[in-house]
């Protein structure tokens, strides 16, 4: 008897909960939500949230953002489980291209205003978004970074009377001059938290391949049609070796420091007093890391850059660029609205003003860049004569990871180059076959 009355008391309570649930979900799904997966965290995440704010305010659509540094694994798992996010931004478009090949992502031709996109974005970026060459747009690019920028502290340079090198020979001469004064010329740091270790060194390699062997070799190399043991790629490794110096002696701390230092901390020794090194190579985004490590630093007076000089003058003005590419997994109206918004100058401008990113949309005014340096790199992006997308990021994932590992091995022991390259050839054979 007693039990029964309790059960009876439960029924209205449960129905109350159910009603509350129904109302609760009803209220929050008015305008809908968009689920996004991307790699930005910390400072970068704050900037991305600022980009989303006006979109959420105007449309009432809620954006649920998930940040991960292991994006390949997260996306693969969620896609094969049939539970992908609505949109994903990837620093490595190769993964998104694989999803396009498998038919897992939606073409964007109807989601974005193609006319507006074509007038506001250079043809190169749109072409990169059509990796299957079937006339369908699978990826759009929102922000970009220029690679191959050599950062230095102008105060250190003028104190020692060093000149900014105009040619590759100048750079080699400067390197020798700095080294003979007793300080290693370079700072290099390649750690990136486990699986991605080694990628900062691949920036060197890509720049050198493009500038030394030219865009044709570069394209064949990305496509897996240029073996790693070929003279062009081997000599690119050797050129990187002349930067590292015998036993990595051109670099502050030698191989131990290169391998054990996080890429974001690469600049800290350069800003020490006296400086522990004079130059470092990193993409335009590195300024965020400079100022978060040493907040007193001022762009322009404390750090500035020169583009890596052309190695082979036949390929003058060649630069490696990289960007954040977006793909759409579910064509909900909310996701389509958001991806359209991300192509606009309005959206891209917000992050540009906050620093660290260059806009792909040409309508973002150069005056909106927060400091003269980012303005300068934006100009380089606009004026680059031979723009090539980041090579390793466009290779199949296991080729990319093998290349990163190979660079770690090369830095550890330059004498093993031949066996390292032979091993990369093996990976190349299977990586492109399975992709």
């Amino acid at each position, binding site marked *: 008897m007693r039990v029964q009355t309790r059960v009876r008391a439960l029924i209205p309570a*449960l129905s109350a*909960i*159910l009603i509350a*649930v129904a109302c*609760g*979900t009803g*209220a*929050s799904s008015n305008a809908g939500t968009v689920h996004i997966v991307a790699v930005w965290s910390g400072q970068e995440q704050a900037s991305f949230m600022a980009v989303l704010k006006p979109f959420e305010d105007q449309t009432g659509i*809620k954006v*649920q953002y998930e940040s991960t540094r*292991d994006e*390949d*694994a997260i996306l*693969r*798992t969620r896609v094969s489980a049939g539970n992908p996010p609505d949109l994903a931004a990837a620093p490595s478009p190769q993964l998104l291209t*694989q999803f396009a090949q498998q038919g897992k992502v939606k073409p964007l031709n109807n989601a974005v205003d193609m006319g507006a996109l074509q007038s506001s974005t250079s043809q190169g970026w749109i072409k990169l978004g059509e990796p299957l060459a079937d006339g369908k747009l699978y990826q759009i690019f929102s922000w970009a970074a220029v690679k191959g920028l050599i950062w230095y502290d102008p105060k250190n340079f003028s104190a020692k009377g060093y000149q900014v090198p105009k040619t590759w020979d100048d750079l080699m001469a400067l390197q020798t001059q700095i080294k003979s004064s007793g300080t290693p010329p370079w700072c290099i740091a390649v750690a990136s*938290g*486990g*699986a*991605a*270790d*080694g990628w900062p060194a691949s920036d060197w390699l890509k720049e050198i391949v493009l500038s030394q062997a030219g865009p044709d070799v570069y394209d064949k190399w990305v496509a897996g049609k240029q073996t790693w043991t070929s003279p062009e790629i081997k000599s690119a490794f050797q050129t990187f070796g002349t930067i590292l110096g015998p036993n990595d002696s051109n670099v*502050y*701390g*030698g191989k*131990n*420091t290169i*391998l*054990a*230092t996080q890429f974001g901390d690469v600049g800290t020794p350069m800003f020490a007093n006296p400086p*522990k090194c004079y130059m470092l190579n990193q993409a335009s985004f590195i300024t965020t890391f400079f100022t978060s490590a040493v907040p007193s630093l001022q762009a322009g007076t404390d750090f500035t850059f020169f583009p890596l000089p052309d190695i082979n003058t036949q390929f003058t003005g060649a630069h490696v660029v990289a960007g954040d590419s977006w793909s759409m997994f579910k064509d909900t109206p909310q996701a389509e609205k958001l991806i359209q918004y991300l192509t606009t100058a309005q959206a891209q401008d917000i992050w540009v003003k906050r620093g660290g990113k260059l806009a792909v949309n040409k309508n973002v005014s150069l005056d909106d860049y927060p400091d003269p340096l980012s303005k300068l790199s934006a100009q380089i992006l606009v004026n680059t004569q031979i723009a090539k997308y980041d090579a390793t990021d466009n290779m*199949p*994932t*296991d080729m990319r*990871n093998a290349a990163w*590992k190979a660079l*770690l091995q090369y830095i*550890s*022991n330059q004498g093993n180059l031949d066996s390292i390259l032979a*091993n990369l050839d093996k990976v190349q054979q*299977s*990586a492109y076959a*399975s*992709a």
Partner: protein
Amino acid sequence: MDFSILLQDIPTLLVVIIGVPAILAAYIVGGEYLVRRLPDKNRPQVRPWIWVGPALILVAAYLLLPAFGTIIQSFENNEGVPVGFANYASQFADFPSGGAWVAIRNNIIFWLIFYTLFALAFGLVLAVLFDRVRYESFVKSLIFMPMAISSVALGLIWDFMYQYQPPGAVQTGLLNAITTFFHHDPVVWLQDQWPSEHFNLLNNLALIGAATWGITGFAMVILSAALKGIPGELLEAARVDGAGELTVFRRVIFPLMMPTIVVVGTTLVIFALKAFDVVYVMTGGNYNTDVLAFRMYEQLYTAGNNGRASAVAVILLIAVIPVLIFNLRQFRAVEARR
């Protein structure tokens, strides 16, 4: 704070909290009802199956079927076309540095031996020593504490412990602060392949050391419980007969604890074989610190190669099976003695 995501999941939650027990209850009541209808002599044959049924179905659905699926997949390429032993061949190619050999060596030699031995030895010594102090429960909870830390946090903590700065700079890692205090050059613990690239003990030991820190508490607590189970009269009798403390440990305590030590040891061996998180967080398998579980993860998620990932999984499975059999036998032997 936006809680709407929680509200959306409440219907699912209700189904789980109310629905699942309801179905189970209905199954048991219904099963018993049917069994009662049976003739008396058949009841004992049918009833156990009714009761273990749900567990069997769950094990079959979530363990056996995927295991068979994995084995089949290990003989196929990504399109599901049979390729014979090609996936295994790629894992066993180029001894000793190619394929999965480095991972196999690290798992089967370094992790299995050092991780198991360290955890057992420290666990045993600590259990025996702490048994004799007044503040036993306090120090034991200290040693046990790392068990409560997630292994990712553990990896990050030890990343800080192993941090490296060039000679002359201020060392930010505790271990290198100590090494430089003794006028030795700082060591890149996670990258240094001492004594050679083909037998890189140092960085593997650095990883194993971090993992041991996390598991010693587990070994200690179980061994300590076994120690408390040894009757005091036995120890007293040995002491009265003139045995010193070391002899008591060697001749009385150790043999009596042996069954527990073996069970803890084999459990640790299984832990060693499935090592993953510390490697993933601290080195990403670079510098010859790969292990099988991480290699499987890489083949599956970064390379997207299901066949090869399955082949690695099967290799791991085969490596674990002898230990599993031994462990089961040991369990039964212990049970039989009771």
